[in-house]
């Protein structure tokens, strides 16, 4: 299976691999491509990060941790002597593969990203002028992640050190802050405009990811 740069079929196979739906031969080819192409590697990481965030707040870790960990692991692996070649897995787990119906779930980066933003794009802050944090993805992938938010959610930072998960100086979110915000909004009736307007307002804008 020739890997010719960064085409759609390569990404589609990588997507299937992420879902555990690729047959062993294609997996090998995909992993080779993944190993060689930094862009594919960035996609791979971004898709998993998106998946993690969708599954749980607690998995929504700062992408820097992943990056540092991966870099250190790669360096350590490089230094390790090769002891043996792994045996083929084909016989043991072959039956798990090849569920083509769900293939391509992660290929449409835009669509995936849209879901991502709709679930999590709420209350977060940017650190303008901060040193660029981990590149969780190529710029255009990060762009796709933020694109459905229409505008890059401008925020004026007033003082130092906001807590935020930031990719390419664009906002992802802060799950903890959302919960405070949600708790705050439950008292919308405290305002004179309370019922209905403040209640309708807070009920229309969903800020908690559940």
């Amino acid at each position: 299976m020739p890997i010719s740069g960064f085409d759609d079929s390569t990404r589609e196979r990588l997507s299937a691999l992420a879902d555990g739906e690729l047959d062993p031969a294609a997996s090998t080819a995909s992993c080779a491509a993944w190993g060689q192409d930094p862009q594919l590697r960035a996609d791979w990481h971004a898709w998993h990060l998106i998946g993690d965030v969708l599954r749980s707040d607690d998995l929504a870790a700062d992408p820097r941790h992943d990056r540092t960990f991966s870099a250190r692991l790669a360096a350590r692996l490089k230094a390790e002597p090769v002891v043996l070649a792994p045996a083929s897995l084909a016989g043991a787990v072959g039956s798990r593969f090849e569920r083509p119906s769900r293939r391509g779930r992660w290929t449409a980066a835009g669509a995936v990203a849209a879901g991502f933003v709709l679930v999590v794009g709420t209350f977060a802050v940017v650190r303008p002028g901060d040193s660029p944090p981990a590149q969780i993805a190529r710029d255009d992938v990060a762009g796709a992640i933020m694109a459905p938010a229409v505008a890059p959610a401008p925020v004026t930072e007033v003082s130092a050190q906001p807590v935020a998960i930031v990719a390419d100086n664009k906002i992802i979110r802060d799950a903890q802050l959302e919960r405070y915000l949600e708790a705050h909004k439950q008292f919308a009736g405290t305002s004179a405009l309370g019922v209905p307007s403040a209640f309708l307002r807070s009920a229309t804008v969903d800020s908690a990811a559940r």
Partner: protein
Amino acid sequence: MLLRAFVVLALSSAAVAQGAPACSQIVVAASATAPSEMRAWLLRIHDAASRHNFQGTFVVSGGGNVASARIAHFCDGPNQYERIESLDGRQRRVYRHNDVVHTIWPANHVAMIEQRGMLSSFPALLQAGDDGIADWYEVRAEGSERVAGHEANVLAISARDGLRYGYRLWADRASGLLLRAEVVGERGDILETSAFSDVVIGIRPQPETVLSEMRRLEGYRVVRPVLTPTRLEAEGWSMRQLAPGFRPVSCVSRQIDAAGDAGGEGAAPPVIQSIYSDGLTYVSVFIEPFRAARHAKPMFASIGATSTLSQRHGDWWVTIIGDTPPATLKIFAAALERRKP
């Protein structure tokens, strides 16, 4: 849906960082309405929502982001019913019967049931004429405009100091129903808009459609946030001074982590939430034990009409959220005092 309205709040970061309360008075050219008239306006807006049956599309927007919902409101004597269906993003439905609010996320089969006692507390304050709103805000009638197909009276409410935002309200001339509201920043910039894009007032009430949905919870994981009333002093805290115009309205002890996502670290310690209101806007002060894993960095930011401040206070972590300028939160943060170890 989840998108919040984001708008740049053009604040001088230097001024606020130095802790100087920005005292930019908003200059009002036209003569202001008398306090009693302002109260009458607000009461009329408030009453309209509990006396009329209406249905429409409600849109909250700012900074290029929009969240919209389909809303139906019914009255049946003293009973209030509401059905709110989000039109953007993840499916979510909110049902209200008086103080009981059900929020349902059909996709992950989660239903949250809340008892929101605060929903009806304010009018008493207004009726008693004890609200003090006129001390901190100035109201002007600004003629009429057409909103969502209805002729509306326009009301401009401006803050008398830099510790709160202004508002512009459009109330239906016939019913008094609030059709559109804007939160206005210190420089006249619009921080957030919420408005009906279309609304029909005077529809036939169908409260049973709301009640039947509220009874249909089988198959859902039901989450019931528990709020235990308390007092700041009883918890070992006090506020040396309040931001001018604000008074305490409520204090509860509660869990802040969404149920089921504690991540195996056991039940998180309860958080104290103390709420202060100036009559039009309000501030929440959250206090909880400091946990290094969760409370890494102090934070101070403004997004749209909402400001947030988080910082450590000895062995405690304090988060203050208010629909106010950031300077207001600083006053609360500085006044908070631990009375017992």
